[in-house]
């Protein structure tokens, strides 16, 4: 397939440059700097089978291809496939690599939608999913003793921010003959490069930081392995879980500021975390960028900074936590993360409601846990808002 928007850079460009230029070049017909939105389902063929790389937009679309090339470049890979949502990417991954009778091992803390997909959908089709504490190498090694096709890591884990050592986990998984996928949604390639650490695939909900403006839902899978990519592209085409051209275009625009945003998200989150750390009403605070975080050393080793997400509990448990969430004004109470706006979420009833209650409790997703995705506002305004809500 010919790719119309390839750009060849002589030097090895930095991430900030790739975020703006990778995967696109000015439109050959008009010189338009931005990639056109190919809102077309089908493509004229000069003769039967003589096409120009695109035949039908479910199989491939030039705008979506441009985004795929850019996301691949950002993760240091050659191949990417984009999907209608992050969960569609997870579905395609599972359907492409697992069949009835196969087994997958997942981190015991992952996004609630991922848990629902494996427990309530794929289990019905004979795929066995085991959720284990992948932060504990002994438990991971034990889980991998049974034949395992795929290891699915989320680090930091949503919403408790527990970390898994990707390099170590990949070594164990590969020794056991399993492929490794890392959900890199929370950090993005700006803050963590899982393929460099030994992962085979990277998964994104592009809905979050990648697009970054709360304007689209989308997903992506990125790999250096041409064969894995082929299997994903086949599956996506077969099940039709495609990203729309307009959403791909919005994401191409949104990702341009990703390096800038991730840097600021992390700075702001650290400021907010330091404020919360000193607040007398806090009983639990989880942020990998804080020295007090139990896995801070690992965070320093495999992440460039702490990221935008933090989680906390206040004295008084669930009732008090809910009161805080209902009292904030600037922070928006909404079910998402990774946007320019600071978003506050109650994982137990919102993002992780689909996780069975006993699995929530074992893994620290308590009723009182509050998740904060720190946005790009002036952090002092966010801190003032939280202080008011905590002290009202």
């Amino acid at each position, binding site marked *: 397939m010919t790719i119309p928007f390839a750009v060849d850079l002589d030097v090895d460009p930095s991430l900030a440059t790739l975020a703006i230029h990778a995967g696109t070049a000015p439109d050959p017909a008009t010189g338009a700097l931005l990639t056109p939105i190919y809102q077309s389902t*089908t493509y004229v063929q000069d003769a*039967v089978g003589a096409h120009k790389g695109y035949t039908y937009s479910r199989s491939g679309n030039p705008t979506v291809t441009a985004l795929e090339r850019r996301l691949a470049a950002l993760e240091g890979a050659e191949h990417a496939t984009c999907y209608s949502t992050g969960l569609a990417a997870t579905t395609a991954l599972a359907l492409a690599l697992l069949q009835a009778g196969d087994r997958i091992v997942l981190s015991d803390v992952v996004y609630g939608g991922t848990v629902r997909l494996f427990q309530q*959908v794929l289990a019905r089709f004979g795929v066995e999913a085991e959720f284990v504490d992948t932060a504990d190498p002994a438990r991971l090694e034990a889980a991998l003793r049974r034949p395992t096709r795929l290891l699915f890591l989320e680090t930091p884990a949503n919403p408790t921010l527990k970390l898994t050592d990707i390099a170590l986990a990949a070594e164990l998984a590969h020794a056991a003959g399993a492929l490794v996928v890392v959900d890199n949604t929370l950090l993005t390639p700006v803050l963590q490069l899982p393929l460099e650490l030994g992962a085979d695939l990277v998964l994104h909900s592009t809905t979050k930081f990648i697009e970054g403006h709360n304007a*689209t*839902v989308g997903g992506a899978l990125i790999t250096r392995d041409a064969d894995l990519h082929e299997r994903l592209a086949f599956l996506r085409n077969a099940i*039709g879980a495609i990203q729309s051209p307009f959403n791909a275009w919005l994401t191409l625009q949104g990702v341009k500021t990703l390096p800038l945003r991730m840097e600021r998200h992390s700075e702001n989150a650290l400021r907010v975390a330091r404020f919360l750390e000193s607040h007398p009403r806090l009983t639990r605070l989880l942020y990998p960028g804080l020295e007090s975080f139990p896995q801070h050393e690992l965070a320093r080793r495999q992440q460039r900074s702490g990221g935008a997400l933090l989680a906390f509990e206040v004295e008084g448990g669930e009732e008090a936590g*809910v009161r805080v969430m209902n009292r904030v004004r600037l922070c928006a109470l*909404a079910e998402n993360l990774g946007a320019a706006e600071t978003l506050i979420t109650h994982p137990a009833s919102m993002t992780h409601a689909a996780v069975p209650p006993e699995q929530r409790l074992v893994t620290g997703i308590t009723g009182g846990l509050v998740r904060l995705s720190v946005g790009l506002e002036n952090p002092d305004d966010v801190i003032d808002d939280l202080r008011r809500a905590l002290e009202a």
Partner: protein
Amino acid sequence: MKTSTRCVHPASGRDPFGAVSPPIYQTATFRQPSAVEFGEYDYSRTANPTRALVEEQIAALEGGRHACAFASGMAAITAAARLARAGEEILAGDDLYGGTIRLLSQVAPRQGISVRWVDTTDAQAVEAAISPATRLLLVETPTNPLLRIADLARLAGIVRRRGVLLAVDNSFLSPCLQQPLALGADLVIHSATKFLGGHGDVCAGAVATNDPELHGRLAFHLNAEGTGLAPFDSWLLLRGMKTLALRVERQCASASRIAELLAGHPMVREVFFPALAAPAAREVHERQASGPGAVISFTTGDPELSRRIVEAVRLFTIAVSFGSVGSSISLPCRMSHASIPEELRGRLAPPADLVRLSIGIEDVDDLLADLEQAIVAARSSPAPPADTTVAVCGAPL
């Protein structure tokens, strides 16, 4: 309300400004009233107000209470296929869109679902094929690309007695011509990319039903697997459907004239079109549908001649897909049905000399003249260089 009126007057939503064309809710998430109370919308993967309008409109046009809109027609069929679980079986027609065959033969079996193919024009054969494991019967009528006719009311009666769900892919006719739910189907599936959208600008799919429990399961899969239609595409589809009745009416009229021309043409061996079908099939079609549709296929007896005809047209575009305002022409065996796996080709692939036409809304005389000149040119042109046909199956759709 008549279908053509409903096409023009979809539910308007609750836009505070009274905008006649609804707003595009290009948002991922929605602010919630409090930490434990949820508003109507919380996250656009689950539900989005623009998508809800298009779902309501498709449900209304199909005479159903509910619909889910998906990222593509294949995503819609994938969700419908999810109604069978591991150990269960799907019965599918033996003349179906190639992408449906690929899904059922290469993806579903990996999840422990077995698939058997049956001639759905033969109700007795369908009844005999049903086993205790059968969960779903998937039917196209007319079929793609041979335009065979299945008797929906009869099939519905058979499957209901056996506890099997009937899903009908209505992409070929649209609800303006055929409403399978009223004939007893449990589910109606659309590639809304085709007639519903009608402008070649959006890939979309839908599943409509009257059964709230089935709808709940489809909506669950849409959310769990994240295959819902994007807001902008939902809006384009809503906009496209305003002219659905008008387009389909014109497309049927033009297609009928073109089918007649082909039927009388000395270079054409056989024409497949509901209005020209054998008396029994034609009687069934006319009982359950109010028009022949706009897809015609024909054979010439010579795959090379067929290929030359496809390549000699000027106004028709060589492209996959159908149902658009612009007419298109294709060789199904090498294009829309190229994805049928090798081992199934003998049974399920269309004839190599089959040409499929989708008739648009251009002036019909221009279309007739174009086909006429293409057939003349194809007949008189020399054999092509051998390599032009090499890569035809290289990009299965």
